[in-house]
């Protein structure tokens, strides 16, 4: 079944620019004002991916645990920073908390995958570990951002209910339990939805990549199942950690709702 990779030559790669010129022509014709962004986007795609191609080749060649760990930590940090863009409701985005939540959830799930399930030799084989951690991070980054944003959104819109529970003698946790539940659900729903439709509506990028790379579809499918399930686990753990750490930030030291949460109501 292995038909091997059909390589893309430099000339063929250059030809792909035709595709983006088509997008540029549409932007120019309709005056979408996207020409500049499209140009720089194309340049950045070429530069960043070419660079990462060399970097990965180098890292795969060395294959040292300390180097791989450093890269994973850096990826977590970048993901923690990047998720801020998806949280318009959160006044002071906790990059530190997001980082630790991502590191813990990705680390736990990623290690289970590479040590117990795939188990390459050595277990920290960069060619396996880095793409696995990258896929987990890319998905849990979105998940935790969605759930954190929802937590604040719910707290704003239900400030009256939360304060009324506090007035009855609720602890902060009792007062926001309903909001936490909704925010966890918001973070996990996209992942659960993708578990439902995968293969029917979408062929995941990883699987497509393996198939294009010449792998047996059966093998690609096995990997994809592991990937889907590990993403579901990592998103759940990441959301739980971040929301669990963050809900206390809605309250003052005296267990009252912070004034900025109430202001949207008053």
């Amino acid at each position, binding site marked *: 079944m292995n038909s091997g990779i059909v390589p893309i030559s430099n000339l063929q790669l250059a030809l792909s620019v035709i595709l983006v010129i088509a997008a540029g022509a549409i932007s120019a014709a309709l005056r979408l004002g996207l020409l500049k962004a499209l140009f720089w986007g194309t340049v950045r795609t070429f530069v960043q991916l070419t660079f990462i191609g060399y970097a990965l080749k180098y890292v795969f060649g060395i294959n040292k645990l300390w180097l791989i760990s450093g890269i994973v930590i850096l990826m977590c940090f970048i993901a923690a920073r990047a998720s801020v863009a998806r949280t318009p409701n959160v006044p002071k985005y906790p990059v530190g908390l997001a980082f630790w939540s991502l590191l813990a959830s990705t680390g736990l799930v990623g290690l289970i995958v590479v040590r117990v399930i795939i188990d390459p030799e050595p277990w920290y084989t960069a060619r396996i570990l880095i793409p696995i951690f990258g896929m987990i991070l890319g998905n849990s980054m979105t998940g935790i951002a969605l759930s954190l944003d929802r937590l604040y959104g719910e707290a704003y819109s239900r400030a009256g209910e939360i304060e009324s529970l506090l*007035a*009855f*003698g609720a*602890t902060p946790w009792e007062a926001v339990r309903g909001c936490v539940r909704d925010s966890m659900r918001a973070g996990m729903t996209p992942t659960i939805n993708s578990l439902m439709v995968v293969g029917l509506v979408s062929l995941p990028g990883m699987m497509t990549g393996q198939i294009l790379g010449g792998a047996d579809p059966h093998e690609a499918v096995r990997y994809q199942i592991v990937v889907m399930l590990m993403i579901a686990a990592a998103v759940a753990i990441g959301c739980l950690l971040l929301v669990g750490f963050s809900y206390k930030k809605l309250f*003052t030291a005296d*267990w*009252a709702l912070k004034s900025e949460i109430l202001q949207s109501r008053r």
Partner: protein
Amino acid sequence: MMKKLLQIDNITYSTGINGRLVRVTTALEEGGILNVRGPSGSGKTTLLRIVARLKEAGEGSVFLEGRPWTEYSPVEWRRKVHYLAQKPAIFDGPVEANLKKPFELAAVKKEMRFTPERAQELLERLLLPTDLLTQDARTLSGGEASRLCLIRSILVDPVLLLLDEPLAALDRKAADAALGLIAEWVNARAGRGVLLVSHAGGMERLPSVAVLDIGEEEGDCR
């Protein structure tokens, strides 16, 4: 001589758009009702929220039964000093579930249980039909919702009730019934008290009402 239930000592906060400084020193005896009055934006709601520890005061302290508020945990304090906001807080579900809501909290659960008979009695007292219990609470009118919330606050049996305009959404008859219930509640057992923000008439009919005016002028309110 009556025992002092609440002592508000030099509580200071700013209020309104121009940040007018308000300084309040007052006291309330057991069985007493303190009617807090003042124009809109004069800081009546803020005072109640500070006393409930839902908002921080600039300075000053509050004593309940002779003990300063710092000696109580926020949960202990709010179990005794209960604030009812003007805007009714309604949760999803029927009226009965709304009345039961506080009884799901650990601090309430360990002290008391929800008794449907008492809830029905209070509904009747406030001129609400008892079949309201099964109705979706989100469909209540403003006046019904504010009476539901008053009943819920009385059910959890605090020591001090902080009521923010509980009569504002009520018609004359319902307001009279609510005021009667408040007066009866405060005297039904020793050691209770009410801070009542209200502009409704009929206060003079209540026993032992004192008035605290938070006026426009700068300075101390006593």
